[in-house]
């Protein structure tokens, strides 16, 4: 069954079809949830809540966007409400190193793996270090390519505010990754 057929079946109330969609998409949803929340426990909660919300709302999914994009929006909304709800007393220094990373491109081009891996490690670390409000926007816009309007709607902020946060986040990432040394910028 194709993803479109599974979505159609799920819209008709077929829970098994929806569970198959979960199996196909949960790694991607978890990845986004982790990038938004910054820790495994919250990411797991967000994944569960995202699929519960998606199951309840699937009849309203019109298919204007891809199923994955629709799911990203629910994930963003869920992660936003989860992080707002959380008591931030938990220290981020309790980070256990995070989940295992699987880069699809490394399998396609092993020669590029070393360089790409180093670059992505630095970049992923820099993104993770951003304040949550800036991190959320840069993840949704620059990594997942959601439009400003969708991001603003899911986060409950104005489009202008979303853009300002994005530009601040990019500036910070630029400063971290291209640290100036005597007027000469160090490459990523």
């Amino acid at each position, binding site marked *: 069954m194709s993803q479109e057929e599974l979505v159609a079946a799920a819209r008709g109330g077929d829970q098994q079809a929806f569970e198959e969609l979960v199996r196909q998409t*949960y790694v991607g949803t978890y990845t986004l949830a982790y990038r938004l929340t910054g820790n*495994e426990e919250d990411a*797991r909660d967000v*994944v569960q809540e995202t*699929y519960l919300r998606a199951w*309840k709302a699937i009849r309203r999914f019109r298919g204007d966007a891809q199923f994955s994009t629709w799911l990203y929006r629910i994930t963003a909304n869920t992660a936003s409400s989860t992080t707002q709800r959380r008591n931030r007393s938990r220290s981020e220094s309790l980070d256990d190193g995070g989940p295992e990373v699987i880069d699809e*491109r490394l399998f396609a081009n092993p020669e590029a793996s070393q360089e*790409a891996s180093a670059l992505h490690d630095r970049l992923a670390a820099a993104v993770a270090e951003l304040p949550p409000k800036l991190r959320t926007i840069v993840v949704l816009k620059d*990594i997942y390519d959601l439009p400003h309007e969708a991001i603003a709607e899911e986060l409950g902020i104005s489009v202008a505010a979303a853009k300002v946060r994005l530009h601040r986040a990019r500036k910070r*990432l630029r400063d971290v990754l291209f640290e100036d040394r005597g007027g000469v910028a160090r490459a990523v």
Partner: protein
Amino acid sequence: MRCEDVALILPRAVDVGEPVDIAVQQHVNTCLACQAELARYHKLLKALRTLRSQYLMPAPGTLALTLAALGESGERQAIRSVLSGRRGAYIGALGGAAVAAGAAAAAVAFARRKAPRLAG
């Protein structure tokens, strides 16, 4: 226009289709430092986009827990649906009984009115 002013605009200017002031464009076209800075932002965006193909593996059991939560939610929904069906049946039965009782009362009242009074 100074490079410091342009530097504030470049995080926005790097977006395709984003309108950029003509003075900024002219400055960048003639300033090697700002061209290099713009190139850094392009490189940054390209690298960010590639992060999308870098998946993070959830801890074992995440999928099972998610499916279990969905299953519970489905069961709750089914129970609610059954209960709401029964509630409908109860309401229907009560309504029917009320109508029947009303009809019976009306029939009795009608019969009493028609019955001849006994001479006292």
